[in-house]
């Protein structure tokens, strides 16, 4: 590792900060991200932690670049070590110029050692402030001015600001400058998690209620919404289990409240009977399904894209559904908003399919509001004795009313029902009602095709395309740019916008599907629609691809 002062102006930079669970590594990573944000960089943060509360090894990788990014690299320029594991476990991420800053009272390493125990004792500060101290040291080492720290701490460190600053200053003064990061001219952007982007998008789309039972990686949506609801007029509720979550969402929907629920695969299993009821009763609901490595409890805090087929097929019987897979914070925001709107217009369940990488990753975020269309509702019904909840209309969508309405009986039903919502087993009505539901799916598909449901990026003139979905979009975008490939990312996966997707792939004779699962679940879906990519890159160890890893895998495939 490097010693002596080196003045380099770096325009892209990666920092790894690690410690044991309970050291506040996630918040420390966020502070580092905000230092870069203040200096005009676009940031991305990956947080890696085992499923435990105290002990174990946690680390965050903060990457800063000139352009928006959504992936981390295989190597880092700085390592901030609060425990020995941070040095020992990440040797493969070190390059010739990596600088290590470490807590000399606990860690043996080469680089810049700071005696955190001593400093904290002298400042009479609690152990958790160790990360402020190491961040101070890092700022000095990276040539970041002290006033940037002051600014960022003032905004991002909510408690004991002056003590935190004092401790950080000791770190700052105890280190030496190793390089100098250029300050860019762009202004700071909000840095938010994928979970927060989803929550904000739902709120923008008109959300009235959020119901969830905690489960990684979407628990933080519940926490975020609960916090927002302290000031914003919104119902946030955490009931006894996911079955209740889903059934409450349907009760709220019946009463006219736009409702979303959040969970991961295990919780979604419990919701499927209610999902099917949503399909039959035509009560809208939005499900945020955050994938993690399964099957079963799997690796709760690690990522996967292995619930696509589950999301597409969950629930008994046949009914249309919307499934969207956003790839970054902006898409998460826009498509959460759109999912809620579309779910209400077509009275179908919608699934926002995300994963640990997107949910718990942090991104520089600019609001894409201006691009998000307002979908509107189908023509309203007039209340009165003639009202029929399941009135047969041309496109299958019936006017929806919520009780109480004068002289109006509003009946919803999970049995096969007639237009007024009363149970029937008559063959002709059963067939008509099935066709009604199918028609809604067709109408939904029609509207989807006008909403840019497939993103095309990279070099559109080449004959080779990477096809990806969900959170791998960020890493695929970079790899496509480096290798000069076209990138095709279907955001809507049900109803699959077949024609738009074929247009996006037109002119390619080589297609490589990138997925973080073992069975090739997107490839299966594409095959059902007549698209048969010839190459596949898959990963299923719970870790997201880094830029370099994916680039190497893609080169192998292309060779």
């Amino acid at each position: 590792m490097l010693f002596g002062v080196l003045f380099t102006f770096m325009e892209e930079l990666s920092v790894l900060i690690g410690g044991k669970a309970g050291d506040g590594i996630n918040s420390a990573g966020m502070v580092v991200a905000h230092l870069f944000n203040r200096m005009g960089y676009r940031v991305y943060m990956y947080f890696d932690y085992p499923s435990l509360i105290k002990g174990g090894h946690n680390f965050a990788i903060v990457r800063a670049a000139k352009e928006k990014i959504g992936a981390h690299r295989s190597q880092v320029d700085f390592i901030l070590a609060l425990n020995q594991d941070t040095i020992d476990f990440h040797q493969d991420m070190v390059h010739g110029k990596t600088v290590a800053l470490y807590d000399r009272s606990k860690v043996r390493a080469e680089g810049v050692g700071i005696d955190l125990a001593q400093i904290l004792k002298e400042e009479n500060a609690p152990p958790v402030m160790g990360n402020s101290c190491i961040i101070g040291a890092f700022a000095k080492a990276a040539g970041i001015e002290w006033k940037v720290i002051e600014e960022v701490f003032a905004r991002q460190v909510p408690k004991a600001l002056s003590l935190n600053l004092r401790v950080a200053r000791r770190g700052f003064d105890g280190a030496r400058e190793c390089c100098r990061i250029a300050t860019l001219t762009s202004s700071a952007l909000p840095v938010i998690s994928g979970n927060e982007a989803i929550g904000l998008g739902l709120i923008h789309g008109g959300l009235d209620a959020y119901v969830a039972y905690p489960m990684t990686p979407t628990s933080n949506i519940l926490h975020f919404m609960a916090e927002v609801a302290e000031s914003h007029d919104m119902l946030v509720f955490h009931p006894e289990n996911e079955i209740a979550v889903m059934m409450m969402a349907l009760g709220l929907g019946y009463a006219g409240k736009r409702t979303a629920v959040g969970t991961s695969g295990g919780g979604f299993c419990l919701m499927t009977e209610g999902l099917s009821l949503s399909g039959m009763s035509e009560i809208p609901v939005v499900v945020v399904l955050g994938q993690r490595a399964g099957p079963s409890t799997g690796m709760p805090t690690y990522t996967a894209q292995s619930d696509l087929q589950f999301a597409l097929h969950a629930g008994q019987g046949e009914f249309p559904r919307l499934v969207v897979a956003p790839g970054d914070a902006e898409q998460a925001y826009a498509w959460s908003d759109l999912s809620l709107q579309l779910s209400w217009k077509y009275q179908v369940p919608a699934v926002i399919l995300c994963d640990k990488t997107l949910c718990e990753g942090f991104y520089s975020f600019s609001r894409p509001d201006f691009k998000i269309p307002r979908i509107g509702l189908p023509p309203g019904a007039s209340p009165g004795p003639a009202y029929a909840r399941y009135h047969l209309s041309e496109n299958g969508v019936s006017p929806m009313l919520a009780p109480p309405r004068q002289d109006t009986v509003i009946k919803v039903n999970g049995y096969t029902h007639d237009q007024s919502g009363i149970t029937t087993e008559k063959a002709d009505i059963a067939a008509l009602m099935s066709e009604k539901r199918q028609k809604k799916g067709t109408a939904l598909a029609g509207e989807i095709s006008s909403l840019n449901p497939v993103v095309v990026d990279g070099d559109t003139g080449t004959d080779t395309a990477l096809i990806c979905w969900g959170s791998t979009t960020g890493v695929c975008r970079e790899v496509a740019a480096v290798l000069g490939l076209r990138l095709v990312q279907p955001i809507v996966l049900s109803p699959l916008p077949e024609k738009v997707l074929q247009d996006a792939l037109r002119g390619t004779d080589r297609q490589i599907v990138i997925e973080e699962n073992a069975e090739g679940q997107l490839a299966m879906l594409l095959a059902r629609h007549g698209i048969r990519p010839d190459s596949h890159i898959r990963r299923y160890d719970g870790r997201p691809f880094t830029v370099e890893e994916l680039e190497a895998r893609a080169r192998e495939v292309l060779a």
Partner: protein
Amino acid sequence: MNARDLITGAQNTWCPGCGNFVIQFALKNTIAALGKEGVDTDRIVLVTGIGCHAKMADYLNINSFYSIHGRTLPVATAIKMANPELVVIACAGDGDCYAEGLDHLVFAAKRNTDITLLVHNNRVYGLTTGQYTPTSPLGFRGRSTPSGTVEEPFNPLEIMLASGATFVARGCTRRMDLLQRTIMEGIRHPGFAFIDVLQVCASYFNLSDYYERSVYEIRDHDERDFEAACRKAREWDYNTDAPIGLGTIYRAERPTLEERLSAVRGTETDREATIRNVLEKRT
């Protein structure tokens, strides 16, 4: 809404002699009586599970949510949370509410949601043609237990008292007037009202004569005394012979879920302001 026909045109498929007719009649009369008192029928929502009992949703000409097996209560709770102006009544089966969805029952009592639950307790699965339920007596020969059950029943009243229910009552389809009065009391009760209705199943567990012999109307009982309520609830264990008291066993007042929720609820309604505020903090 003004006087309307409270019965739909749906064909009724309950067996002749089924106690569900009595519950339907009592409920219809109660709704009509509420209407006379000024409780708009348009404001009433019925939530049902799945089972013979649940057909009530098809038969009563009022707002209804015909839900799935075991899940009446989360739906009913949510409708009440969404709009506390609504009068929410849930009709559940004993299989529905004591087996498939017992968790929700305990939580509805714990939360004290202002809804009224009628459990059509025929002590058998009617619609699936006669299997034992959590309140079938020990040794009950049902189609899944041809040699008799090997479990004692539990006492739903005790469960409700232990879970914090603020209104606990029992009715019987052999005593319609009393049942109707009890339902009215339950609906008027500001909080979770639980009514276990001993319902005769004519086809799979006809206890008409037994109930005729055993039931009595509870009098001279202090329904505000929790200990007395526990004693009253334990008088009959749903298993061995004992007098079966009908009427209100326990009543208490506690803030409802909806009241507590509205007390902590935020007031900002401008979505734009909320979003901007969050993003500002994250910059």
